[in-house]
C-alpha cells in the first residue's frame, strides 16, 4: 500500500512540472502588459524600464521560468504587482474561505446526491424516481448565478432569513460562519448534487442487477444489508472518481458563486488578479489549484485501492 502511494506520488511529479510550464507559458502569451498597467497614465519610459528591471522581465524566458520555479519551491510565489503583498500570503488568506465554501458545497452534494441516487435506483420507474430525476435535471440546468440571485431575492430580501453576502471566519464564530455560507454552498452544490445523483443512480442500477447481489438476496439477508453492504460498496468506485473530478468544477463554480455573494475567497482573488493582469497572483493561484486537483485525484486513487481488493496486489 505504501509503495503504491509512493509510486503514485512519483507519477504526479512530471504532471506538476508540465503544469508549471503551461502556467508560466500561458501568462506570457496573454495579451496586455502589466508594466504598462502599473506605470499609469503617463507611461514614463524611465518608470517602465525600472519596473521591467525590478520584476526581471528582461531576462530570457527560460531563466524567468527557472527563477520562478526555484522561488516557488521555497514558498516564494512572488509579490503581487498590484498590492505589493506576497502572493503566498494572499492565497493563504483567501484559501480557507474557499475551502470552507467548497467543503460545505461538497458535503451538501454528497448528502443529497448519494441517498437520492440510491433511492431512485431502488425505486426505478416509480413516482419517486421520476421526481428525483426531474429535480436533478433542474439542478443541472439552472445556472448558478440565476439561482444565487433568486435566493438572495427570496431568502434575504423578502423573507430576511439569511444574510445576502459577507463572510465570518470559522474560528471566530463557527455558527454564524456556517449560517452566512449556507446559501453560497447550496448554490455551488446544487449542480454537483445533481451530477452525483445521476451517477449514483446508474452505478447502483448496474450493480443491483449483478449476480452477487442476487446471491446476497438468496442468502436471506435483509434488503437494507443487500443494498448498503453488497450493492453500494461496489457502486462506490465511480462515485469516488467523480467526486475527485468534480473538485475542479467546484473551484470553477466557486469563482462565480463568490462574485454573486461577495464572499472574499479564492474566486474573487482570481477574478481581480486577471482583471489587473497581476501575473504573479494568477500564476500562484493556478499552480495551487492544479496541485490541489492532483492531490484530490491521488486521494481518489488511494480510495479505490482501499475499496477494491482486486487492485491491492498489482
Amino acid at each position, binding site marked *: 500500500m505504501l509503495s503504491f502511494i509512493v509510486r503514485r506520488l512519483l507519477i504526479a511529479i512530471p504532471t506538476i512540472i508540465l503544469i508549471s510550464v503551461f502556467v508560466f507559458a500561458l501568462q506570457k502569451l496573454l495579451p496586455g502588459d502589466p508594466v504598462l498597467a502599473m506605470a499609469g497614465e503617463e507611461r514614463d519610459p524611465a518608470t517602465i524600464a525600472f519596473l521591467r528591471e525590478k520584476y526581471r522581465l528582461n531576462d530570457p524566458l527560460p531563466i524567468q521560468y527557472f527563477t520562478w520555479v526555484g522561488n516557488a519551491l521555497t514558498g516564494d510565489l512572488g509579490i503581487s504587482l498590484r498590492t505589493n503583498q506576497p502572493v503566498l500570503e494572499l492565497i493563504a488568506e483567501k484559501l480557507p474561505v474557499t475551502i470552507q465554501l467548497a467543503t460545505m458545497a461538497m458535503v451538501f452534494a454528497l448528502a443529497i446526491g448519494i441517498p437520492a441516487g440510491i433511492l431512485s435506483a431502488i425505486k426505478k420507474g416509480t413516482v419517486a424516481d421520476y421526481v428525483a430525476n426531474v429535480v436533478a435535471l433542474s439542478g443541472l440546468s439552472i445556472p448558478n448565478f440565476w439561482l444565487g440571485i433568486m435566493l438572495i431575492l427570496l431568502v434575504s430580501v423578502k423573507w430576511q432569513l439569511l444574510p445576502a453576502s459577507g463572510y465570518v471566519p470559522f474560528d471566530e464564530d463557527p455558527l454564524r460562519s456556517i449560517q452566512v455560507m449556507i446559501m453560497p454552498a447550496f448554490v455551488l452544490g446544487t449542480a454537483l448534487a445533481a451530477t452525483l445523483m445521476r451517477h449514483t443512480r446508474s452505478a447502483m442500477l448496474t450493480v443491483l442487477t449483478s449476480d452477487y447481489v442476487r*446471491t446476497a438476496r438468496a442468502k436471506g439477508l435483509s434488503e437494507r444489508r443487500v443494498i448498503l453492504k453488497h450493492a453500494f460498496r461496489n457502486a462506490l468506485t465511480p462515485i469516488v472518481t467523480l467526486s475527485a473530478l468534480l473538485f475542479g468544477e467546484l473551484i470553477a463554480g466557486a469563482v462565480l458563486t463568490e462574485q454573486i455573494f461577495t464572499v472574499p475567497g479564492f474566486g474573487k482573488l482570481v477574478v481581480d488578479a486577471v482583471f489587473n493582469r497581476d501575473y504573479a497572483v494568477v500564476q500562484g493561484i493556478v499552480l495551487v489549484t492544479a496541485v490541489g486537483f492532483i492531490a484530490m485525484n491521488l486521494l481518489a486513487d488511494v480510495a479505490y485501492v482501499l475499496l477494491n481488493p482486486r487492485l491491492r496486489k498489482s
Partner: protein
Amino acid sequence: MSEPILKATNLSRHFKVGGSLFRKPKILRAVEDVSLTVQQGETLAIVGESGCGKSTLARMLMRLIEPTSGQMTFEGRQIDLAQGRALTELRRDMQFIFQDPFSSLNPRMTVGRLVGEPIETHAPQLSARERRAKVAELLAQVGLRPEHADRYPHEFSGGQRQRIGIARALASGPKLIIGDEPVSALDVSVQAQVINLLADLRDRLGLTLVVIAHDLAVIRHMSDRVAVMYLGSVVEEGGTDDIFARPRHPYTRALLSAIPVAEYGRTRQQIPLEGEMPSPLDPPSGCRFHTRCPFARDACKTEAPVLRATDTAPGHRAACHFFEEIAAENPPPPATEGSGRTDAARARFALYADAIAGTETRPRAET
C-alpha cells in the same frame, strides 16, 4: 424418500416484453403450468435446452423471482406468499448454487465474510470466534483450507470459486439445495470434482438436491429422477435410469440420441430436430413440440397433451398423445455399453476410470 420436501403446483411465470404507452406489451411465457414434487433426500434433475425456462423455474422455487401464478409448499408450509420472517426462514432451509462462480461472489468481500454472512443472519447467537470456526469447518468440507478465509474471490480458480459458492450455500444449514447449472461454467476436468463433491455432501449431510443442467452426462451421474423441459413446460419425468433406457417423449428421445458415443467405429442413430426452438413469446398451438417433432400428426397441432403415466415404471410420465405407438414402432436406440473398443482403447478407458475413481474418494483443492 417418501415425504415430498418441495412441491410446486401449476407454477407459471410470464414476463412482459416491449410495449410502450401506445402498444400492448407481449407476454413471454417462460414457465407455463409446471407441477413438480421433490422427495426428501432425492436428487431431481431438470433438463432442457437453453431458453426452455429451467433457470426461471429454479429461481422461482427459491423465491428469487415471484411466480405469476401457482402454489409452492416446502415441508408442507406454503411458501409462494412467504414474506419477512417466513422468507428468511425459507432462505435458511433452501439454498442456491449459482451457475457463474465468477460473477456470483461479491468481489469486495473476503471468502470468510462471504461464507460467514449467512451464519450471521441465520445464527446470530454465535460469537465471532464460533463463526470463524464454522467458516473454517465449511471450507474444509468443500476441500479448501481455513486460511483461504482471508483471501478475496479473485485469488481463486473457477473450480475453487464454485467450492466457495457451495460452502456459502451450506453455511445456513439448508435441507434443500438448488443448483442452477452448477458446473457448466467450469472446465470439464474440474466439473467432475465439483459434481463428486456435491454428491458426497448430499450423502453426508442428507441434503435434497435439485439440479438444473443441460449436460446429460452430469444428470445421469448424479440424479435419481429427471424432469425434461421444453418451452416452459415439463414434457417428461421419471426415474433417471428408466428415462435414459426407455425415453417416451419424442423430445427426450432426440435429446438422448444427441449424446456422443466415445467409441471408435460406433455411431448411434441420431434423431435430428429440425429448426429452432419456437419463441416463448408466441408458442405453437396444441403440443408445443409439434413444429419440430418428427412424429407430429394433425391432432398435435390442436390439442395440448398432458402428462400421463407410461407403462415402463411407476412415476414415469410423458406429455405426448402418441408415445405408445411411437415407442412400439421405433425401439429405443441400443444402450451404449458395448464392445466396439479395441483392446488398447479399453485399457486406456480403464485408466481414465481409475483416475476418476481416485478423485471421487478425496476431492482435492486445486491450487
